[in-house]
């Protein structure tokens, strides 16, 4: 197992390097340069001043030198300073946003799993029933619904028409003056709509997957054996069935990691939530290269780590894979 893990990590390093190299090239080879944007803001800046800026950022050096320098700094976890007017260290800018995006995603994952697993089990055990058909309709519609549109609809319904829930940000303007209890309540109210919208797509996918997994398990011989032993149907389904069906679904957690930041871009932009997705969106527009690169590094690492986690957890829960891998290594 350990050997497998080490090998898995080792093949990941060149992948990460490749991604970094490609994204660096992409930013550098694109037409224009960040100093031009800064110069646009300062109409009186002269060519000489621009040259000074380029030297300051090291943009006058060849690309491979820039990449080497950048990579060496990244290894030491130094992502430089943002090109935006505040000029703050990139890591600081990102660090204050990580808890927001991470917290949202954690809540979202909990919601998705706690709803999708029972939903999948129920529709599998009642295959072709009205409930199963209704769930299937929900799954197809859920897949096809654009999340940004769903966001607009719930904003119109619950925010504008009914006036029940706030539609942007994480806190009310008077947050500072509220009591602690009221602050918690305020935060929760702001989270309802973003979480609702963020969960629909994942819920559709995961409940479908759970249903498939459960259907497969139901047809297994050991289920028939359990029934033949005279066990109660509920014991057969929940103890023998669900336990086996839920394993592959749990390993999906790792594969959900890459989607984490991508999904955050849209949700955070629509609901004006100051997380990493919003930061990425703003930085892409203002071509804040240090911030963009740092976010790509984080995103790609998360994705690669998620893959490893999925493989390893799969091997952990399924002894057959573990044995096969050991022979392979």
């Amino acid at each position, binding site marked *: 197992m350990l050997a497998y893990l080490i090998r898995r990590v080792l093949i990941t390093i060149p992948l990460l390097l490749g991604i970094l190299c490609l994204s660096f090239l*992409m930013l550098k080879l694109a037409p224009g340069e960040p100093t031009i944007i800064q110069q646009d803001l300062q109409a009186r800046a002269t060519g000489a001043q621009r040259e000074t800026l380029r030297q300051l950022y090291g943009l006058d050096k060849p690309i491979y030198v820039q990449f080497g320098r950048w990579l060496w700094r990244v290894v030491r976890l130094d992502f430089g300073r943002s090109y935006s007017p505040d000029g703050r260290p990139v890591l600081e800018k990102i660090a204050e946003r990580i808890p927001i995006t991470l917290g949202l995603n954690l809540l979202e994952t909990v919601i998705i799993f706690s709803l999708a697993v029972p939903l999948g089990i129920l529709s599998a055990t009642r295959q072709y029933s009205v409930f199963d058909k209704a769930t299937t309709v929900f799954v197809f519609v859920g897949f*096809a619904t654009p999340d940004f549109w769903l966001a607009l609809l719930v904003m119109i319904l619950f925010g504008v028409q009914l006036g029940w829930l706030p539609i942007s940000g994480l806190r009310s303007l008077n947050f500072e003056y509220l009591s602690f209890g009221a602050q918690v309540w305020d935060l929760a109210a702001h989270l309802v709509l973003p979480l609702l919208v963020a969960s629909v797509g994942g819920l559709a996918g995961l409940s479908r997957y759970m249903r498939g997994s459960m259907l497969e398990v139901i047809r297994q011989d050991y289920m028939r054996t359990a029934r033949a032993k005279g066990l109660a149907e509920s014991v057969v389904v929940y103890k023998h069935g669900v336990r086996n069906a839920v394993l592959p679904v749990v390993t999906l957690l790792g594969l959900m990691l890459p989607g984490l930041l991508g999904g955050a871009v849209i949700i955070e932009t629509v609901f004006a939530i100051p997380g990493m997705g919003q930061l990425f969106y703003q930085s892409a527009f203002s071509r804040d290269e240090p911030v963009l690169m740092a976010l790509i590094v984080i995103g790609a690492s998360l994705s690669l780590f998620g893959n490893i986690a999925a493989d390893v957890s799969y091997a952990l829960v399924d002894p057959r894979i573990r044995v096969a891998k050991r022979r392979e290594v």
Partner: protein
Amino acid sequence: MARDASAGRQGQVAWRQLRKNRLAMAGGSVVLLLGAVALCAPLLAPYDPAAYDVKQILLAPGPQHWFGTDQLGRDVLSRMLYGARISMAVGFVSVGIAVLLGTLIGTLAGYYGGRVDELLMRFVDLMLNFPRLFLLLTLIALLRPSIWVIMAVIGFTGWMGLARLVRGEILSLREREFVQGARALGAADARIMVKHILPNALVPVLVSATLGVAGAILTESGLSFLGLGVQPPTPSWGNILIDGKANIEIAWWLSAFPGLAILATVLAYNLLGEGLRDALDPRLRQ
């Protein structure tokens, strides 16, 4: 000759299967209808999609304007009809790019195996681990959005799944008797790949392309909504929704109808794709 006849029979069987699947047929009809609407947009649109009228700003849906008007007094229905063209064009062209690239890379990797395979599949892994929305946003922001850039970028970031799929198919076909036969007769690699192997791998590609169109339309509308898609004044479903967000308190129709159109289109392509898979894949039929 014999192969053509059996291919024809296979097609008939698949068609019969597909016709029995009511959901897939419904999806297929909507797909055809949308295609017709997009083609005939100039004939169907009641108004000029770009004509604004300051006296008709933000009118609710009514007999004059079925889907209402926007903040410049433009007719939403007409804009959506023209927007259908953008969605269809982006869907087809970007999926076309993805299919070409994916099939090419998957075939080369599967057929040659060994080092070529290793190298190409590592590249696929690399692209798959690039957070896709990041890649899309960065590329489009850097290159300035235009419909061509959007089609190209969606296509070039969406071929990896197909490459894996095709590679898998090719691997299972490569050692079959008819391929060995062709090789024994002295056929060149390229000829074996194009004439003998690829036709047998087309079914999963077709299914995946149908589902891919749905995905591409969804992606384009998302990019438009973020302001990085097709740029105004050209209407697209996604950028009408931006106006919907700006006028969220007063004009629900600006948000409701374009989103519904996206949903219906994506749903239709997904249903058709799933139906095709069930009908064309004999392994699933039993």
